[in-house]
């Protein structure tokens, strides 16, 4: 690139997208850019090069001779959100980042238009950006200055067919009247535990869409995608020897694959263990032939010595028909150390219902499946729940 600084450069590429990329890269660097249109005959090349004083030709094919510029494997460094303090710098390469994206697949029957609620500068959004760019599909970016409703309206106008977001993004989307405007063929969830309720709601709301949830983290990369409509993942995925290896140790899921990040920058903490497995910190529990995500190891609430995962309680509360979404958090208590409390967003239809009756109903519903210490001591009805930039529910320490 530095070779081209101040030079007169002819851009001659096999397609428009690559020409566009070269323009973006070289404007402000090269002195002069000559755009070679596809139909120009090579017999004029010498004359044009002379007239424009061309020093270099940028091309993706060898018809013009020349030699390939050696490229290096660039590190792509992402910052993790993390719950405490300084974010960590996670080093990936294009190869590790695009490992989960199948290329060279047959052309889809109808045009694919991607979009995502995420910002593409975070792992979840970056995956979608790469998916679009590497498969040559359009991508509709999110806009932080617009409401969710406006975003959905825009996505609908662009004919978006494939959308990715966190379960919290999707729960809020379903609360918007604009949710009915989009007609996705493929709905992807990642970043948080996808409980059965949100999967069911999406399937019911968008019956023509394939709904899938993917497990990924900035450090571990994309591990797997579940497309059977059920929460959790089949036990059979653990212990198979394939490109992505899964293990469960001390209750948490560990991953080893070509898609995991290389290392952290600036800290001595190793990203993976000596055996190459990354501990995701996500606790999983086996029920029959299926693993379910119980929650983050570092999010456990201790009620008088008994552990509670907030995510597990949220999944139960969310299954109540009057509930749209919930946040379970810890509240300090002088008797048991901590107690579980829940902030609940009701379905619009219930917003004017009798609060005390609704609370009793929800508590009763919780008691059917949860032991006493996991049932929220207090339920607060709230109009909305804060969702972080990452699309995940904001959980304060």
């Amino acid at each position: 690139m530095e070779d081209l600084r101040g030079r007169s450069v002819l851009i001659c590429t096999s397609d428009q997208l690559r020409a566009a990329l070269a323009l973006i890269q070289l404007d402000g660097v090269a002195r002069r850019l000559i755009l070679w249109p596809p139909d120009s005959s090579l017999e004029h090349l010498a004359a044009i090069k002379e007239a424009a004083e061309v020093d270099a030709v940028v091309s993706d094919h060898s018809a013009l001779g020349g030699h390939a510029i050696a490229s290096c494997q660039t590190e792509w460094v992402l910052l993790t959100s993390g719950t405490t303090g300084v974010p960590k710098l996670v080093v990936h390469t294009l190869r590790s980042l695009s490992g989960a994206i199948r290329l060279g697949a047959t052309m889809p029957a109808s045009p694919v238009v991607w979009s995502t609620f995420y910002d593409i500068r975070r792992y979840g959004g970056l995956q979608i950006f790469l998916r679009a760019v590497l498969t040559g599909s359009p991508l509709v970016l999110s806009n932080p200055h617009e409401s969710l409703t406006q975003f959905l309206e825009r996505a609908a106008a662009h004919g978006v067919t494939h959308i990715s977001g966190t379960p919290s993004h999707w729960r809020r989307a379903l609360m918007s009247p604009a949710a009915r405007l989009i007609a996705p063929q493929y709905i992807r969830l990642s970043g948080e535990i996808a409980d059965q309720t949100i999967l069911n709601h999406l399937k019911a709301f968008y019956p023509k869409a394939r709904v899938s949830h993917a497990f990924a983290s900035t450090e571990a990369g994309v591990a797997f995608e579940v497309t059977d409509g059920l929460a959790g993942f089949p036990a059979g995925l653990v212990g198979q020897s394939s490109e992505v290896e899964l293990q469960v140790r001390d209750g948490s899921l560990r991953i080893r694959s070509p898609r995991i990040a290389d290392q952290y920058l600036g800290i001595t903490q190793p990203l993976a263990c000596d055996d190459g497995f990354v501990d995701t910190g996500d606790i999983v529990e086996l029920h029959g032939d299926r693993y379910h995500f119980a929650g983050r190891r570092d999010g456990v609430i201790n009620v008088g010595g008994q552990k509670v995962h907030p995510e597990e309680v949220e999944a139960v509360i969310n299954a109540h028909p009057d509930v749209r979404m919930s946040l379970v958090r810890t509240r300090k208590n002088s008797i048991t150390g901590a107690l579980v409390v829940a902030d609940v967003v009701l379905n619009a239809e219930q917003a004017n219902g009798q609060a005390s009756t609704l609370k009793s109903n929800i508590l009763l519903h919780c008691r059917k499946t949860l032991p006493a210490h996991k049932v929220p001591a207090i339920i607060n009805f709230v109009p909305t729940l804060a969702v972080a930039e990452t699309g995940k529910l904001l959980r304060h320490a």
Partner: protein
Amino acid sequence: MSVRTEVVAQFTQVAEEQNKVLAPLADDLPLLNSGLDSLCFAVIVARLEDALGVDPFSADSDAPFPMTLGDFIRSYENAVPYRDVFTGLFGPGAPPARRRAG
């Protein structure tokens, strides 16, 4: 609602929610015999904190945990700024001599 009524209401509600058989409530009832476990008390204390604005058993108070229901109610009555009918009539400053609530 007086402090006493509020406390009794919470005892009753939590017992019902948690399917506990509540012993007949009297001031001299030892809390250990009430039918409620520590989780129940934790919930009662949390809800009373929302209702009355105080937790007499929090870390910064030296009060020992009460033995009987009467002690429990007294802990709250002592911790709650003068309320009931006269709440708001008197501003900050020494309240008049306390009436025994309930």
